[in-house]
């Protein structure tokens, strides 16, 4: 509403009270207009607010729906979790059962281990006792069995020396049998003792110059019978990880046998070397009298001989000793031969 201010510029043409009233009225009208404007503004604001409220309400409803959805989902999840829990419980129960079984098995095992340990201890002490017995046996053999032989040999000789004029040739021959038998039995006793000593001896592993050891043994053999012509062919630079004393015994027996069984050969040849191939084996080869392969299984048995004492002397313990030593060093030994064509003895030292 516009108020004409020009009317207010004419106070002198109307009575003053009327003018005041008119003025007041105009003011009221003016105020009313202002109120109206304000009301309109308020109404507009209220409308705005209501509109906002509706929007909020819609949003709240959305949120409520979302919440309900979440609650639904939660129920589903809760059900799943409960199911999973049930499964876990049953698994746990199964596990407990399994654990108990395991514990029982462990208890049983412990008992069995204890039993086994006790058995092993028992076995060990039995073995130790057997070993002690064996040692005292061989001690007794060593001391007591030789003395009577000495008497048999010594007094047979004494008879020949002191009463020779009263004995005829046959009596002297019988006495010589007693002597040679006593001496043979003395050697057998020594060999038995050596064989049992090999089984009991402690093994000291060492890097051994095998070629040099073979040369030493060959030299000993040459010196023992300098009149013989024997060619030793020893492969150079052979090394072995083994017990030196036991290896020496092996070579003394194998080279010694080769030396003995080439005795009738004008040009004896003895070879020591190692074979090529997947499983290299040491070998001792000779061109001596050889042997029939039909008897190959007898070679390494103690006191088994393939020759009479007149042909070749010996007690039949050498190769048995070799086999025991090679066995203790973790290898194996075997032989090839033909009658009249020499023999080859092979051996390995460690099972791979």
């Amino acid at each position, binding site marked *: 509403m516009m108020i004409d201010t020009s009317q207010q510029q004419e106070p002198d043409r109307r009575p003053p009270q009327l003018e005041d009233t008119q003025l007041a009225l105009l003011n009221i009208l003016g105020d009313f207009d202002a109120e109206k404007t304000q009301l309109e503004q308020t109404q507009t604001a209220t409308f705005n607010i209501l509109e906002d409220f509706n929007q909020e309400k819609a949003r709240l409803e959305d949120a409520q729906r979302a919440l309900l959805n979440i609650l639904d989902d939660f129920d589903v999840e809760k059900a799943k979790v409960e199911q999973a829990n049930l499964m876990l419980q049953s698994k746990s129960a199964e596990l407990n059962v399994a654990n108990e079984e395991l514990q029982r098995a462990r208890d049983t095992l412990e008992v069995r281990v204890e039993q086994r340990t006790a058995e092993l201890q028992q076995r060990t002490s039995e073995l130790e006792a057997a070993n002690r017995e064996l040692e005292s046996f061989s001690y007794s053999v060593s001391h007591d069995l030789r*003395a009577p032989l000495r008497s048999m040999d010594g007094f047979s000789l004494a008879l020949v020396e002191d009463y020779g004029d009263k004995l005829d040739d046959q009596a002297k021959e019988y006495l010589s049998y007693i002597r040679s038998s006593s001496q043979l039995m003395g050697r057998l006793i020594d060999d038995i003792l050596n064989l049992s000593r090999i089984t009991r001896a402690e093994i000291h592993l060492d890097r051994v110059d095998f070629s040099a050891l073979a040369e030493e043994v060959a030299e000993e053999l040459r010196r023992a019978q300098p009149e013989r012509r024997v060619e030793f062919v020893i492969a150079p630079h052979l090394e072995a990880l083994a017990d030196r004393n036991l290896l020496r015994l092996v070579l003394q027996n194998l080279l010694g046998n080769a030396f003995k069984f080439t005795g009738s050969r004008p040009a004896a040849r003895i070879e020591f070397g190692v074979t090529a191939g997947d499983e290299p084996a040491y070998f001792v080869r000779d061109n001596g009298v050889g042997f029939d392969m039909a008897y190959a299984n007898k070679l390494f048995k103690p006191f088994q001989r393939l020759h009479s004492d007149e042909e070749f002397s010996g007690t039949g313990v050498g190769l048995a000793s070799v086999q025991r030593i090679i066995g203790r060093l973790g290898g194996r030994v075997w032989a090839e031969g033909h009658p009249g064509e020499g023999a080859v003895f092979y051996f390995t030292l460690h099972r791979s």
Partner: protein
Amino acid sequence: MPDKIILLVEDNPADVTLTLRAMKRSNIANEMVVARDGVEALDYLFGTGQYAGRDVAELPVVVLLDLKLPKIDGIEVLRRIRANPVTKPLPVVVLTSSREPSDLTACYDLACNSYVRKPVDFNQFAEAVKQLGLYWLVLNEPAAAGKPP
């Protein structure tokens, strides 16, 4: 040489006879005292028992000691010989049947002077006795302590 006594400690009479025979063959004419077990040997050396009153300063020139003996064995005899200051320097030759490693170790630990194994073959045995006689009765100079001048 007759003043030099040999003490033979040997329980086997056949071995005693053979040892004497071997010595005779090598012309060893020393007086031989035979002890038939360890106790007799110690009695002789220390002047006790059947040898009570014997002049213990008179030591034998050599003791030939068997190991397997009744009552007290050879190793124990050797131990007591070495434990006594008077008999400590006495030459002791172990003359026995065995060469068991345990015997060898024990005897050398107790400072035996030699260890000889009696061979079965009498000719070899006689040779060993001859060598022992030559060495201990002729070549070896004993310790002076045993006998007063």
